[in-house]
């Protein structure tokens, strides 16, 4: 089996207890973990190493498969298809419903995570930049913003680069709320959307809703709406806690002990101090290098080594003194 060649799935690291912060990475992770495929997951990945310049990508031996569609095809061929246990009719419904959810939630996701300037600058850019290696983290998150511009232009008909009051976000919000209502009604009291077994539709719904529900954005109207649908909240939490027990990550560790608040403070304080220390060291080294370069340019080193041979007013009598010594 090709799995022995060290198959590795590269994704972004998670946050807020989720296994990943990116919708496409989360979808690919669902494909893997729902079918219990024995593959490693690498979270400190370089997006530019993948063939297409984006995460997620799957590396088997020397071959790279970038993007959700290709990863799904590889898994289907390797014997871990996600729709294995569904009947034919359920398979067709799963594809149709997944497509419908994509049509309605994709634009909302891209607009409120990347398109809205306030959200992007305060939260999302930081999230992605921390998980991209230096020096790409300065410009790489903006590529997501450009992609979101295209998505919003095609699906919602307005341009993200216009002024904020020209953004027609209400239409997106209303559509998204209708989708959430329907999803809640379809799920009912069931464990998975199609009864007892997982499907691609569960993967897509979980990937969209988990991120929209857990992420703390300044402007996210759907978050409260999802909170109102208890069965969807249970669905998200169950999958996060059970299936992604090992991959869930949160930079602020919350403990249940009485000193829980102290522990969380210390952790966050430590993070703060670390970042301050880093900045101090880099700033100090940079300053020393800059001053040293300036001094060298000004010729301080020549002055230091030849100080013994100069007079009080700094005139160089080196040749005269040497002649006197010989005599």
């Amino acid at each position, binding site marked *: 089996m090709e799995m022995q060649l060290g198959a590795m799935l590269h994704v972004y690291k998670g946050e807020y207890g989720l296994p990943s912060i990116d919708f496409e990475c989360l979808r690919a992770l669902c494909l893997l973990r729902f079918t219990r495929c024995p593959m490693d997951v690498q979270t400190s990945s370089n997006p530019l190493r993948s063939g297409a310049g984006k995460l997620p990508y799957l590396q088997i031996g020397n071959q790279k498969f970038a993007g959700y569609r290709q990863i799904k095809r590889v898994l289907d061929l390797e014997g871990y298809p996600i729709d294995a246990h569904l009947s034919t009719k359920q398979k067709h419904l799963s594809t149709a419903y997944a497509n*419908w959810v994509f049509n309605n939630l994709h634009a909302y996701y891209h607009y409120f995570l990347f398109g809205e300037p306030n959200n992007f600058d305060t939260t999302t850019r930081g999230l992605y930049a921390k998980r991209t290696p230096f020096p790409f983290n300065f410009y790489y998150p903006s590529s997501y913003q450009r992609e979101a511009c295209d998505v919003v*232009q*095609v699906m919602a008909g307005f341009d993200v680069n216009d002024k904020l009051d020209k953004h027609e976000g209400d239409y997106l919000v209303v559509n998204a709320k209708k989708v959430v209502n329907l999803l809640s009604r379809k799920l009912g009291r069931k464990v998975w959307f199609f009864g007892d077994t997982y499907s691609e539709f569960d993967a897509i719904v979980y990937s969209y809703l988990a991120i929209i529900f857990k992420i703390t954005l300044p402007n996210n109207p759907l978050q409260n709406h999802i909170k109102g649908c*208890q069965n969807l909240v249970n669905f998200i939490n169950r999958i996060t806690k059970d299936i992604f027990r090992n991959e869930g990550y949160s930079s602020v560790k919350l403990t249940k002990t009485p000193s829980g608040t102290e522990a969380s403070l210390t952790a966050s304080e430590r993070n703060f101090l670390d970042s301050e220390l880093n900045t101090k060291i880099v700033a100090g080294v940079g300053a020393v290098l800059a001053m040293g370069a300036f001094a060298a340019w000004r010729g301080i080193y020549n002055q230091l080594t030849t100080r013994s041979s100069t007079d009080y007013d700094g005139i160089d009598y080196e040749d005269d003194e040497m002649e006197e010594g010989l005599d």
Partner: protein
Amino acid sequence: MELEQNLTAALMQSSAEENKSEEAWPAVAHLHQPAEANQLLLPERSSCLAVKTYLRMCNLPFAEHNSDNAEFMSPGGRLTHLPLLRLGPVKTFAEFEPIVAQVEAIQGGNCLGSWMSEDQCDNIRCLVSYVENVFTLAEINMSFVDEANYQLYTATRCAATHPWPLSTIRRFAKQKDAQKILKVYQWQDLDNDQVIQEVGICADALVAELEEDQAKSYFGGSRPCKLDALVFGHVVAIMTTKLPNMELAEVLATYPRLLAHCRRIDQSLFDGKLLTSAVEEQEKETE
């Protein structure tokens, strides 16, 4: 559960209040589309045909107009921005799904599909969205990405009504738009075979839906619904448009159940004029 029911009720109430202020269907509703002879592209033709079929199924009168600038008059839309339905001086709607939503809002309880259960309604709505996506994206791919089709069919039609150099600019602009649409829907790296495969999967789903219950002759039961109109529009447009590369039509020809279904709708609404002749020609060619 209670909370979500309240939320659903609140949303439906707000939309119902909007409906009460809607007028009835106007005496003359205008449907605008580009000229079929020299300007209309394949994805646009299927969308226009689907809307016309739906309006005929609902017995709603409308006047057809051939406008060169229909795509510029269109208020928006996700895929093709056509056809354009004008109900009053300011009320315009474009593309199949918004037009259907508007018709259902106006007709209220009498609309097509009101006899279906809530689950069936949801399924049909999802299938409509899925079918429209897959078929339109496949048609856009065939028209703009396939080289032979683009050079010989699409490019001349895009530039037909504009003088040079506007024609060249419009051609490039439309091609860029098409590529952007394919990229947003994540179809940009699919090659021909994969596109045909996607269409095949969709057709399988439709045939399975038809054959699920032997008693039903249409997707929604014994009477046609919006899904029938949509499938009819796309299938007929694909089968009857003469492209240099007819791979889509060849794939659809392998689903006789779908073609029989479309022929039945053709007989009842259009007196068999649209589909029969084209299909007979195809069968003669394959023999």
